């Protein structure tokens, strides 16, 4: 499997370069917005990728709660980390586009903006919990929080739904229309982003597996070697 990684890296690099060329040069200029609109080739694919990763996180967390398989937990951790990065890209590119087109950086009552922001907050708090939690129980607590976060998403959406929304209608599955050439470039960019996300997740997954193996080896070593290195610390777990 290891030989697959460099091949996939090369394919991803070519795809990203080609998709960038298509987005900046080949795709037609928008009649109303001009060249500013081209940021959607980064904004929209990032959003789709982030939502997909958060969904993977939810499924992996449920799987972990049912079966307690460490692999499901690693997958949940990795997808949340990479998802937060893509979600950050969405939240940064959005205002850059909104300023020239809407005249404002941020529309506080808008449904997609606010729910994406809340989604980002929830998964950042998930990562904070994983960082702060003591090692033995992190997985179950994090999985429980992930389920809560996923349950919260539809509620966030409907709570803001009451306000009128300012965001353009979704180009796919919504009322908006899009030039087929633009759609082609958009989907190409999404494919490139998906490959990139998969690549990052994969290497992060391998890193986390190695990390846990090393930790386990250290634990076994200190068990076998008698006194562990931190034997002088007080045994009170709650103070850590």
């Amino acid at each position, binding site marked *: 499997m290891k030989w697959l990684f460099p091949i996939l890296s090369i394919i991803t690099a070519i795809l990203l370069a080609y998709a960038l060329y298509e987005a900046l040069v080949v795709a037609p200029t928008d009649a109303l917005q001009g060249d500013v609109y081209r940021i959607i080739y980064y904004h929209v694919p990032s959003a789709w990728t982030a939502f997909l990763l958060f969904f993977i996180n939810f499924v992996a967390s449920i799987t972990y*709660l049912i079966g307690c398989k460490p692999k499901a937990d690693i997958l949940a951790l990795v997808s949340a980390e990479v998802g937060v990065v893509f979600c950050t890209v969405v939240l940064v590119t959005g205002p850059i586009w909104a300023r020239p087109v809407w005249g404002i950086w941020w529309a506080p009552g808008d449904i997609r903006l606010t729910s994406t922001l*809340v989604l980002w*907050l*929830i998964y*950042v*708090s998930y990562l*904070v*919990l994983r960082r*702060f*939690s*003591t090692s*033995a*129980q992190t997985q*179950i*607590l994090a999985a*429980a*929080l992930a*389920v*809560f*976060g996923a*349950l*919260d998403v539809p*509620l*966030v959406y*409907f*709570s*803001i739904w*009451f306000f009128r929304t300012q965001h353009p209608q979704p180009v796919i599955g919504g009322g908006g229309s899009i030039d087929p050439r633009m759609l082609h470039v958009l989907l190409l960019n999404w494919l490139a982003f998906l490959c990139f996300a998969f690549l990052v997740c994969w290497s992060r997954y391998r890193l986390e597996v190695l990390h846990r193996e090393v930790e386990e080896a250290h634990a076994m070593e200190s068990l076998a070697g008698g006194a562990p290195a931190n034997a002088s610390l007080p045994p009170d777990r*709650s103070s*850590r």
Partner: protein
Amino acid sequence: MKSLWAVTLATLEKDIRLEWRSKDALNSMLFFSLLVVVIFAFAFDPLAEESRQIAGGLIWVAFLFAAVVALNQTWARELRNQVLDAYRVSPAPANALFLAKALGNFIFVSVLEALMAPLFVVFYNLHVLGPAWQLIPIAILGTWALVVNGTFFAAISLRTRSREIMLPLLLFPISIPAVLGMVAGTTAVLTGDNPAHFYIVLLLTYDVVFTTACLALFETVLHAE
């Protein structure tokens, strides 16, 4: 079912008696929200019309922060003398403990709200223009929304470093829809501009969804080791 309620009531009675004797949570919550009211009154200095617009937000932000004070103390009490470990090995249902803690917090925060609400009226010269009775379901459902998740996340943050900071970090993002429902509903009633029914339904949905989730997952979290 009978043992669930018996254990719930026994634990609840114990918590209320402890609180009645020490008044730790109530006193700190009361003084804390009083400070928030006074500081907000200085910071904004609003006119009557403006205060109707912002009071809903101020009231609930004050109660949200104050509730965190009580929620943080929920489980800390059980850590002394390994009470929580004893509870884990006992055959009593885990959900009884959770329900008792959540109901206890609900009572404490409700008492706080009942005492603080008149103060808000005085400080901000509030005069309700909409149907005032709707504030009662908003307050009950909103308080339950805060304490049910707060009690659960307090149990999670118990197992982390710097747990007192952890609780708001976990609770606030998840509570955003509930806070939005409470604030917008209260503002709708105070100003009388639009109906608050939607927000009451939203809070009810939030309560049902998260009470179910808490009861389904609490045993797993309690026994996580």
